[in-house]
């Protein structure tokens, strides 16, 4: 028994871990990537990047000049999608504002608006939106349509709805993009840490000749690999915890489901990505190449996993590529647990896929890595 304890105590894994944490703390680039990157990403995606459009600068040409027309303007303003920046007269003035880009929308209320309303006829008003950016104009328009409909007016050219469809946005009733984006950020950051930072850390050892030095020592392959990998697992879980805390405290993202199950399933995702990082390190010679190769793996993750753009909107080949990314499944797990309060009972398929990815990739990369250190 004491010999086993002695063997464990003298294992080369402990000095490896100690050294790894010392390096991590002192290497500014790595530290910056681990601390600053999550902060910047959280700010960018949490605050700056929004797919829900708010505060479009809007000009108004009110030919009606009545109580009713002013009520409509007020209703449009109250959607929060439009900021009334000026009152203008004449179609030319409207076009002028839109062309200059000083206004992204224009509300035109014809002279007969109030009289039509009073006589019980369908009153029409026109809302012109600069639709050069289809994403922003879409959500702005739907906001305006809702406001107008509740006001008894109708946007010009839109035929009356044949049926009354009531839309109820579940899980994110306010349709806030941060509720959707911030949980996904956990997946993105874990991918970056596990693929980019891990592969660079391993390649750095090779570049500086310390890997060769280590291979000459009696350190075993398991200790060498675990010593290189375990610290980053810990970093990943720490990043995840910090983001969860900020998501809840700052961005008011609900944490509805079981965090225990989330941390558990995350393990599969972390191992799968670590394996990719390990694999990258066997494919390249320098840290710069490691960075490039990592981005090759990370880019599809950003774009095709459903982190920012809905997968349902993508052409089929893009969706197929998405199916090959562990992040695609992990995002479903993140959003499922955090926003919908579902657990393994519902997410077992995604979990199985993640475990399969992890097993397959780690077997492949450990084999390749072992060969490079022989």
């Amino acid at each position, binding site marked *: 028994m004491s010999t086993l304890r002695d063997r464990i105590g003298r294992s080369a894994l402990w000095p490896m871990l100690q050294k790894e944490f010392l390096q991590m703390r002192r290497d500014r680039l790595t530290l910056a990537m681990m601390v600053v990157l999550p902060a910047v990403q959280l700010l960018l995606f949490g605050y700056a990047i929004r797919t829900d459009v708010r505060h479009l600068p809007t000009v108004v040409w009110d030919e009606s000049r009545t109580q009713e027309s002013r009520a409509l303007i007020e209703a449009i303003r109250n959607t929060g999608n439009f900021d009334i920046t000026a009152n203008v007269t004449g179609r030319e003035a409207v076009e002028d504002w839109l062309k200059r880009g000083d206004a992204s929308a224009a509300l035109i209320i014809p002279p007969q608006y109030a009289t039509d309303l009073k006589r019980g006829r369908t009153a029409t008003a026109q809302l012109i939106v600069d639709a050069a950016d289809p994403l922003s104009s879409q959500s702005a328009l739907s906001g305006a349509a809702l406001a107008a409909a509740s006001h008894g007016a109708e946007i010009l050219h839109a035929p009356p709805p044949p049926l009354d469809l009531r839309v109820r946005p579940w899980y994110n009733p306010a349709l806030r993009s941060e509720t959707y984006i911030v949980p996904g950020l956990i997946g993105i950051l874990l991918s970056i840490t596990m693929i980019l930072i891990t592969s660079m850390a391993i390649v750095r050892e090779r570049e500086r*000749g310390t890997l060769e030095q280590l291979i000459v020592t009696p350190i075993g392959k398991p200790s060498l690999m675990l010593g290189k990998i375990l610290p980053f697992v810990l970093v990943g879980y720490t990043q995840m915890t910090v983001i969860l805390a900020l998501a809840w405290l700052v961005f008011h993202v609900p944490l509805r489901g079981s965090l225990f199950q989330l941390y558990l399933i995350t393990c599969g995702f972390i191992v799968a990505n670590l394996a990719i990082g390990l694999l990258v390190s066997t494919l390249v010679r320098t840290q710069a190449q490691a960075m490039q190769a990592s981005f090759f793996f990370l880019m599809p993750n950003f774009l095709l996993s459903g982190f920012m753009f809905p997968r349902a909107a993508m052409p089929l080949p893009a969706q197929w590529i998405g199916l090959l990314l562990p992040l695609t499944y992990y995002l479903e797990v993140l959003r499922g647990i955090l926003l919908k309060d579902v657990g393994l009972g519902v997410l077992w398929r995604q979990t199985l896929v993640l475990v399969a990815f992890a097993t397959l990739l780690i077997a492949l990369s450990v084999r390749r890595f072992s060969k490079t250190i022989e």
Partner: protein
Amino acid sequence: MTAGGAGPAVVTRALRKVFGELVAVQSLDLSIARGEVFGLLGPNGSGKTTTIRMLCGLLVPTSGDATVVGFDIRTQSEQLRRAIGYMSQRYGLYDELTAYENIRFYASVYGLRGEEREQRIRDQMDELGLTPRRDQMAGTLSGGWKQRLALACATAHRPQMLFLDEPTAGVDPAARRRFWKHTYDLAKRGTTVLVTTHYMDEATRCQRLALLSRGHLIALGTPDEVTRHFGEKSLEDVFIELQRRDEQENP
């Protein structure tokens, strides 16, 4: 740790390494006695580093075999690694770790713990005069200090056999002289040293030399013997003559 008893430190038989089309080392037979300071000399690409890397267990020979301090390099790499020290051209130091932390790391990897380890680190620092730089980051040390620190790391586990691959490339003469003094101190205590170099003054410091050219052994003996063998005035002339022949035969 005393395998092989008093037999030779290194024995190679028909050791050969091929990389694709290139024969890096062909049929090398060498025998190095215990406690010897042995030099491997030859121009770039003559197979010095490949030989050292095979003897350290970093490369598997294509054919032939070798024992180092009694351990077979093919089958006993685990025991072999505990018994040898290796200092590469690149030193293998961690820039973000202090001198002390570098030695501590390597000592720990060899299983040294607690007071035994701390005493060993103090000894290494004393012997190599590293104590004033104990807490300086390895990355900020100058070439000569790095070289000494690398030697301290490579010998922290008191190896029976030490491999030095061009240890003094790029350091000033004073530092090189000090380095050789340390190497001889180690040899006096019974450590066998195999060193590759292309500095002639260093080659003359070795007790015996092996001259390599394009992967094969062309001369073996004391520096004087080697010089006489080629009928040249100095070892440097031998070296230059060798390179000339090499260029003639491989235009």
